[in-house]
């Protein structure tokens, strides 16, 4: 009996311990669970990011610190290199909490490179303890291999050429052996003549071999050099492309470290591992959330209105030509395009929340209406009408995050206003209040990923970005400096990408709707029509 009890108790303890471990693991990866960093509610905790490695500039640290700064949820303390080195503990030593507390930091983040990634550690300065420490995957860019490529190509070529030359020499030697043979089995002439002829034949045969090999070498040398140079160039190019892709992926993997660390501090994942698509000079471009890695993803034409597939691997946009505007899907990884519509006017495409359909606006002589087509499948899809505007404009749709509703603009009441309807086109509602007969102009709605707000642009003399809360229908003006247009929500439902002339030329800026902080994202005059990606997990 007693024994049974003790066994049961031991089992219970083991189970409990196991559960506790499991719990601890779960909470670390669940967003929204605070692990207990102590800082005042409603304040932005100040943090310090310690050096990660000793490379000049320490790019990983720079990226993480900037990501955390751009999150607007924590505030990194800028410190010079010597101060940073001074507060970084030697391996195995504890952090000097008192010293760091004097610098005003609530938390410290430290990273160590490991074989497969980065071990990140979060210290709570107030409680003087480690809150979280975990190895996070990070992609490492392989070193430049140009020299070793040259060496190995030349080594391989030399080896192959040597064996070919050997066989050529063998053939020449066989022929030379025939040349050396005396013409008669028994030469009746005096011996000295026989010897002289034999010596002549021998030197002729030797010269034959030498000449043959020299000619072979001369003929062969140029083409061998050309071939191996071509091989070196080809391999070096492939290598540099692989390195470039790895560098892009490395940046993204560091952004993911930032997002994870942010969830340890604030309980919410950051939005650093995202990209923003936009239009400049008629091309669709994509830029990382921190403004780096800006590149064009289309090569020609006047393209407009990019929108992301929920998996982040595809874009849909519209391209204008002299005879009309078509909706086009672009596979970002393969670089493949698929034209989804005929000519005529086909604009403002977006993917449905599940990514299966494309909703866009198609125009004819009686105005524009919203229609839906499947995103995949063969043949030319038949569009299904969701609005019947009867001569008015209906475009710029944006799905609610649950996929059940659509916000869009319509000019059915003469001036463009933001409306909502169910995903099947029923239950039409006017979202933005206005006075009939008074000229208003509201366009470009974007439904926030948390479902609470719709951002849009409105004309008040010039154009400014507003948002309206869906619960109390209270519009709130967000911008005033310069002209601000085309808002697009970040996955956190807090930041907006928009085009603004506040810095002179029209550029994409990021606005934190809670603090009002602006930062410039692009350096391309005329940048517009921003679209913020979902979280990128690859």
């Amino acid at each position: 009996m007693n024994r049974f009890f003790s066994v049961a108790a031991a089992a219970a303890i083991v189970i409990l311990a196991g559960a506790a471990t499991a719990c601890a693991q779960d909470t670390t990866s669940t967003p929204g669970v605070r692990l207990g960093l102590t800082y005042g509610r409603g304040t932005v905790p100040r943090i310090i990011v310690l050096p990660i490695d000793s490379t000049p500039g320490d790019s990983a640290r720079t990226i993480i610190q900037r990501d955390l700064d751009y999150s607007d949820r924590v505030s990194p303390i800028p410190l010079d290199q010597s101060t940073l080195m001074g507060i970084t503990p030697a391996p195995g030593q504890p952090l000097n909490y008192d010293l760091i507390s004097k610098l005003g930091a609530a938390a410290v983040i430290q990273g160590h490179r490991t074989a497969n990634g980065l071990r990140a550690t979060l210290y709570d300065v107030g409680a003087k303890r480690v809150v979280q420490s975990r190895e996070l995957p990070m992609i490492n860019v392989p070193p430049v291999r140009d020299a070793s490529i040259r060496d190995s190509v030349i080594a391989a070529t030399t080896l192959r050429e040597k064996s070919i030359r050997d066989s050529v020499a063998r053939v020449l030697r066989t022929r030379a052996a025939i040349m050396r043979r005396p013409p008669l089995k028994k030469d009746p002439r005096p011996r000295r003549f026989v010897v002289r002829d034999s010596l002549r034949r021998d030197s002729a045969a030797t010269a034959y071999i030498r000449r043959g090999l020299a000619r072979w070498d001369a003929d062969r040398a140029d083409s061998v050099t050309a071939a191996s140079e071509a091989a070196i160039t080809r391999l070096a190019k492939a290598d540099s492309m692989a390195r470039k892709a790895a560098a892009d992926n490395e940046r993204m993997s560091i952004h993911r470290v930032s997002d994870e660390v942010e969830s340890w501090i604030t309980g919410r994942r950051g939005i650093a591992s995202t990209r923003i698509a936009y239009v400049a000079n008629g091309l669709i471009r994509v830029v990382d959330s921190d403004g780096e890695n800006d590149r064009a993803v289309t090569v020609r034409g006047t393209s407009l209105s990019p929108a992301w597939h929920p998996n982040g691997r595809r874009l849909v946009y519209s391209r204008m030509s002299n005879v009309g505007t078509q909706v086009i899907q672009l596979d970002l990884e393969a670089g493949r395009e698929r034209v989804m519509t005929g000519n005529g006017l086909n604009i403002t495409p977006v993917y449905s929340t599940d990514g299966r359909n494309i909703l866009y606006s198609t125009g004819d002589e009686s105005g524009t209406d919203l229609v839906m087509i499947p995103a995949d499948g063969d043949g030319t899809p038949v569009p299904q009408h969701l609005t019947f505007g009867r001569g008015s404009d209906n475009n710029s749709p944006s799905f609610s995050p649950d996929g059940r509703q659509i916000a869009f603009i319509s000019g059915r009441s003469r001036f463009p206003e933001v409306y909502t309807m169910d995903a099947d086109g029923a239950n039409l509602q006017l979202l933005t209040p206005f006075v009939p007969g008074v000229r208003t102009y509201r366009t470009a709605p974007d439904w926030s990923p948390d479902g609470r707000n719709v951002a849009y642009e409105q004309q008040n003399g010039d154009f400014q970005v507003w948002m309206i809360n869906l619960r109390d229908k209270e519009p709130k003006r967000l911008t005033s400096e310069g002209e601000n247009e085309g808002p697009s929500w970040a996955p956190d439902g807090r930041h907006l990408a928009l085009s603004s002339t506040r810095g002179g030329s029209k550029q994409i800026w990021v606005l934190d709707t809670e603090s009002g902080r602006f930062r410039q994202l692009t350096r391309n005059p005329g940048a517009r029509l921003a679209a913020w990606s979902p979280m990128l997990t690859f």
Partner: protein
Amino acid sequence: MNKITRVATVVVVSLITFVGCHRKKEQRPAPSRINADSLLREQARADSIARAEAARAAAAAAATAAANAGPPTAAPMSSVERTALAATIYFDLDESALTDEARTSVEAKAPVLLRHPNLRIRIAGHADAQGSDEYNLALGLRRAAETKRYLAALGVDESRMEIVTFGEEKPAVQGNTQEAYALNRRCEFEIISGG
């Protein structure tokens, strides 16, 4: 004969529409609440009255255009005709309705098209740089469609006219001044074939 019948039909249809609207107006109480439905009803009524009036005016203009055109000819266009046909028309801010000036310009184009039955044209609608780039595409299309509709009302066969919109993507004049905006809110006319 054919033309007269067509004109007469337009007049009769427009009268019916007009009278029909009038009757509805008496029956419906004034909307007390502003919502999507009441706004749409209000707008639909205003639109149908405007359409009826426009149709009446167009019928008269069509008769004039037909009279001005004279008999169809295979001769090439004169430079005067070419200029009249190619003349750009301009619009008010965020409007697709033709101004009086634009109407006069379009009325000068109709006889050219009627006289040269092989001519096919493309009407390109444009908008100024103000406002949403996407909405401006739709606005450009409405401007082109409105122009095409008016030419059709003046007797030009619809199959001879294509419409296209460039939104604010191809401004005639660069710059962010009111003057530039006014010159960019326009429809351009391009001969596709037969000219």
